[in-house]
């Protein structure tokens, strides 16, 4: 066969794939397979966040398949890249439903993507765990959204509580570095309100754009104002730039705090000694935790040839394993009669579900799909290039 003929056959096959619509008896479930979609960023500026998360989700399902699958069915995960753009996430979801005929999707991406897809999620009864931590996703109740991680507000309230209660500060000088994204603004408001409840006003509220590679103006302002505690509301890459810049200007606040998207061993690996006062909050465990869930995650990673370097952000790999763990358990609970309704009902049977320390005990009912509002705090362990847990799972304190 000459090259032209091979190319011709490939072209015809591609056109057929593109224009055809495969038929299936029931959406996404056959006697031996469950088709499960996944929409997460694989390429572009935030690929470093999506890839470990998605690899965790896919690896756990592979592991489950090797254990015999669920009720005799193997799980086939179809991962679509949305480049972290809501219009692409919407297109990907349309493809997954209409062309790949998936039962449901693990996630459709972040907050924007989930809101943009909300109508389709409801229309096609797609039980999913969004990679977003906003109250709007479970209050008011959305039947097919199952929130897994603590709200941004919860995380920042716990951080402020830690300053006043654990570190016993009376009148600390707190500054906030945030980005003008939803999590940045929500974080800023939460910190401002919480500090006010303790009778303290914020010293500085400074914007650090997500694409920032230098934070000189922010660091110098904080230094000039003798800010003792810096709370950051931005994702990992700009926070790494920020922490490195503090070292450059010899600015040593008592602590620099970050929330879940910036709480990973990577910050210690990237910043070294500059990160010695870094404390992060997260709703998943740490890679160095000695819990059965984290041990299982490490075993799975090793099985599929992933070392820490190739995983990248281990906290997100754990998050991915955790999300898939939920789906695996829900498939088990739904039984052989698996469909969108039985899957939703299965999720709603979770009561204090124990993930072995990957995330806090979790419960869903037919009236609430709220996440467990708990986090752990981790402090930089520079010699071992790790973040080590310094608290157990904790909630924000009740204020008078």
């Amino acid at each position: 066969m000459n090259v032209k003929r091979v190319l011709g056959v490939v072209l015809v096959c591609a056109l057929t794939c593109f224009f055809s619509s495969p038929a299936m008896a029931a959406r996404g479930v056959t006697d031996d397979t469950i088709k499960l979609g996944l929409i997460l960023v694989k390429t572009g500026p935030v690929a470093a966040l999506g890839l470990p998360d998605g690899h965790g989700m896919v690896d756990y399902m592979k592991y489950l398949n090797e254990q015999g699958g669920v009720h005799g069915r193997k799980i086939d995960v179809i991962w679509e890249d949305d480049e972290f753009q809501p219009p692409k996430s919407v297109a990907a979801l349309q493809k997954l439903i209409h062309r790949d005929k998936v039962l449901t999707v693990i996630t459709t991406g972040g907050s924007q993507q989930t809101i943009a897809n909300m109508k389709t999620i409801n229309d096609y009864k797609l039980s999913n765990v969004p990679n977003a931590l906003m109250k709007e996703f479970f209050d008011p109740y959305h039947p097919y959204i199952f929130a897994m991680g603590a709200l941004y507000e919860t995380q920042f309230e716990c951080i402020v509580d830690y300053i006043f209660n654990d570190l016993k500060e009376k009148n600390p000088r707190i500054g906030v570095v945030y980005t003008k994204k939803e999590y940045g603004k929500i974080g800023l408001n939460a910190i401002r309100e919480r500090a006010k409840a303790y009778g303290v006003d914020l010293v500085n509220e400074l914007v650090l754009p997500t694409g920032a590679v230098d934070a000189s103006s922010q660091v110098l302002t904080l230094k000039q104002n003798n800010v003792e505690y810096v709370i950051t509301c931005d994702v990992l890459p700009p926070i790494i730039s920020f922490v490195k810049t503090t070292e450059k200007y010899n600015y040593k606040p008592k602590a620099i705090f970050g929330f879940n998207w910036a709480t990973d061993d990577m910050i210690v690996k990237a910043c070294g000694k500059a990160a010695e006062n870094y404390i992060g909050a997260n709703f998943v465990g740490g890679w160095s935790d000695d819990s059965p869930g984290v041990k299982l995650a490490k075993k799975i990673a090793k099985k599929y040839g992933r070392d820490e370097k190739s995983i990248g952000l281990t906290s997100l790999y754990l998050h991915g394993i955790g999300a898939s763990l939920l789906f695996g358990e829900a498939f088990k609970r739904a039984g052989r009669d698996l469909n969108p309704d039985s899957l939703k009902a299965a999720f709603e049977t979770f009561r204090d579900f124990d993930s072995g320390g990957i995330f806090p005990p979790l419960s869903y009912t037919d009236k609430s799909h709220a996440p467990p509002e708990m986090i752990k705090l981790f402090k930089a362990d520079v010699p071992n290039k790790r973040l080590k847990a310094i608290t157990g799972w904790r909630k924000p304190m009740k204020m008078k």
Partner: protein
Amino acid sequence: MAIRSKTFRESYYEDIKLFQTIWIKFWMMLFIIALVAVPFVTDPYLVYIIDISCIATIAALGLNILTGFTGQISLGHAAFLAIGAYTTAIFASTLNMKFWVCLPASGVAAACAGLLVGIPCLRLKGLYLAMATMSFGVVVEYVTVTWEDLTLGVRGISVPTLDVFGYALDSNEKLYYFLVAVTALAVIAATNLVRTRVGRAFIAIRDRDIAAEVMGVNLTRYKVLAFAIGSFYAGVAGGLYAYVMHYIHPDHFTFLLSVQYLAMIIIGGLGSVLGSVFGAVFVTVVPEFIKALAQTMTLVFPALEDKYDDAWNIAAFGLLIMLFLIFEPKGLSGIWLRIKTCFKNWPYTY
């Protein structure tokens, strides 16, 4: 007895007819039948892709009127889309207005913004104009993020389902007919516009503005008009985008989107209505096609399965655009014209 040629025209009316020969009418009818049949013969995903292509076509038409026909380069087209999208979103979600108010209002709001940009930019050309329009895009992005009382800032706005006289267009198939109809209207309006005095004035300005002025073309009027019309198209496209996506956010209308629209009209063909359609469809559909091709390749050559990465799609798309610019600078409309000429002259090759 003289034999009448098929292109021989006896009256001005015949000369300005959109469909001049029986064959053009025949193919057009066939095309319309195919368009009507699409949702019945294919899956909703392809219908969704066509829906998105329709919106891209309307916006690309607007940019082609401004850049392709009038020669006014714009790197701020996404800003006009944003103005249109936010107008529809606010009118529909906050004020409960119907589509027949929202969509024209989106067009008018964007056209007014176009006037605002067009007037101070009258003396600018080339790179300077590109910079000015790009800056306008930055200003609009800033406003959508910070004017939270109106735009809800980074939280974005949810948009209700498009309701056409009590009939909810709540699926891709239902939206399809509406979008195809609006796109057809936009294409016909643009085709007619470029044949009128206004269109010819635009082309004269693009070819040599000083010569156009000497011939009596009012540069101020027509340049500003080109901005207003181009922005009107973008505004309507933005309004439709809001209805199709059900949710809009400042991040949807970045500088990259403006570049994407510029790519559409360059690939399709500058100064060509048909080129806008081709370019918009190409840029929207080809990434999907490349993905399907890559998946097929992994089936034919299983060894590629582990090596294939989504980043390949982006690289392949970029390469395709580069090859296009090198080998077909007149764009897809140039290829189309050559194919048409070839058939017209068959069996002769010239």
